[in-house]
């Protein structure tokens, strides 16, 4: 069995990385990579082809000056800057910006799901504008990461019905 490759772009501000990832590890079906900032997220998407990408809304910029200036422009606060949404707009929207060289596979909206503490109603418009329909709230519990990964994979297989 070849494990599915999963990328989780998550800032780990609440030290929940290990807590939510453990359920995924037990499955023995997924190779889980982490990116802890918007910079790292884009870097990983350039480097590797993934079967599912889980994105947090509140991301720190990382070390790329372009993300830094955006972060600063939006108030220099992860909560208000919402770089996760900017990342999705950049990767999936019309304005490709500095992600223009990403591989075609990374531009499929069905590849992405959003795992956040921001309520669905607050980000719905942004997600729908780029075609992302999978969302889960982190407060759902310790198996929520596994659940959203399964959601994305089911959707990619064409039998998803979400949100």
């Amino acid at each position: 069995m070849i494990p599915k490759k999963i990328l989780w772009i998550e800032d780990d501000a609440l030290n929940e990385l290990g807590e939510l990832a453990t359920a995924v590890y037990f499955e023995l079906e997924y190779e889980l990579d982490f990116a802890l900032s918007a910079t790292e997220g884009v870097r990983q998407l350039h480097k590797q082809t993934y079967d599912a990408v889980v994105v947090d809304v509140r991301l720190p910029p990382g070390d790329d000056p372009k993300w830094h200036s955006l972060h600063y422009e939006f108030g220099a606060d992860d909560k208000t800057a919402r770089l996760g949404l900017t990342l999705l707009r950049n990767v999936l929207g019309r304005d490709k910006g500095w992600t223009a060289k990403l591989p075609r596979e990374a531009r499929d909206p069905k590849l992405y799901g959003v795992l956040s503490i921001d309520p669905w109603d607050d980000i719905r418009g942004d997600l729908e504008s780029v075609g992302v329909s999978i969302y889960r709230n982190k407060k759902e519990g310790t198996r929520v990461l596994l659940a959203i990964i399964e959601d994305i994979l089911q959707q990619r297989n064409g039998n998803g019905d979400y949100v």
Partner: protein
Amino acid sequence: MPFDETLGLAQILLALLLFTVGIPALIIEIRVDESLRRLLHKRMHPVPLLVLGSVTLSIVLALFLVTGQAVSLSTERLLRLLSAGVIVLFAAVWYYIYNNLRISAVVREVVDHMKARLNHDGTISSPDLSDLLTAGENLEGHEKTEILVAVGELIQLAQHRHEYSGTRLEALIRGLPRIVERNGSIEHHNAAMRVVTQSWTELVTKKLKNEKDADFILNAASALSLDAVARRLESVALRWVSAFSLDVDADLVIDVPYRIGAAAIEQRQYRIAIAALSRLALIASRRQRPPKELVALCARFDADGRSARQIARRFLDKLGYSSQDLREAAASAVIEFENMGDCSSADAIQHLVESSLETYDSTHHSPGGMASS
């Protein structure tokens, strides 16, 4: 301005010059770490300082000689010029201090020199590297990150040379844990991880993964990841677990998750240990027989209590090993670990065989068959 006033002004300026140069120098001497101070002294260029010293001394001497004496018009003009010179000297000294006597300027100079030499003849200057690593160890914050980035750039330069054959990076790679282990933060760990994984990717791309540099890179990865576990940097340790792709050659990289897992169990950081066990299980799922690292990590889980034992059992059950498979793998793993001098791993496996595999037998009856979950 009358001569006496000019003379007085010159004396004041000179005192100010000595004061403003002397105080920062004194502060640097007191505050900077011993090894950094030695590095600064070693890298300081003597000529500008000698010139500065001689000029200052001459002015002091001139002022001393002319004080209270009647002087000619030309001497007075000369002294006025000297007064103006003191002001210029004042500015020049500050400019020099700002540009040359800071540790970041020294580091920049060292890195530039190393890059130039790497570009020229492909060699790494040992004294330069030693100074760079000393600075890296002793600095903190963004300055430490900059040195890690510089080490990464040097590694890339070395790897991009056409004659690179996978045997040149030892000194640079070994420096990474040295820099991070002392006062390293998450930012530094992340920077070092990026350098290690980039250099590994380059090595693999050039089909040099069986050369010596591969060992140095993986040893550095182990050292850095163990440091992350010891400091309870969970996100860093979890990322180290999956830092090396299994697509290339899992045999080469399998030691990294094993070491992380063993250290994590010792420190009761079970989520990291589970991540490591999962990684080893993924490697095992591609093979006929369980790798020795998986057996050893399961043994360490087993020895750590009932709950941890159940976790290891869940993974083994998922992999579908029979007790016979595990016994055979354990027997050869004990020998291999003993041959490697890793007695603690060998003992843990021995204990697993003597105690827990008995209960594993009772739930997995069919030797050679698949275990039920």
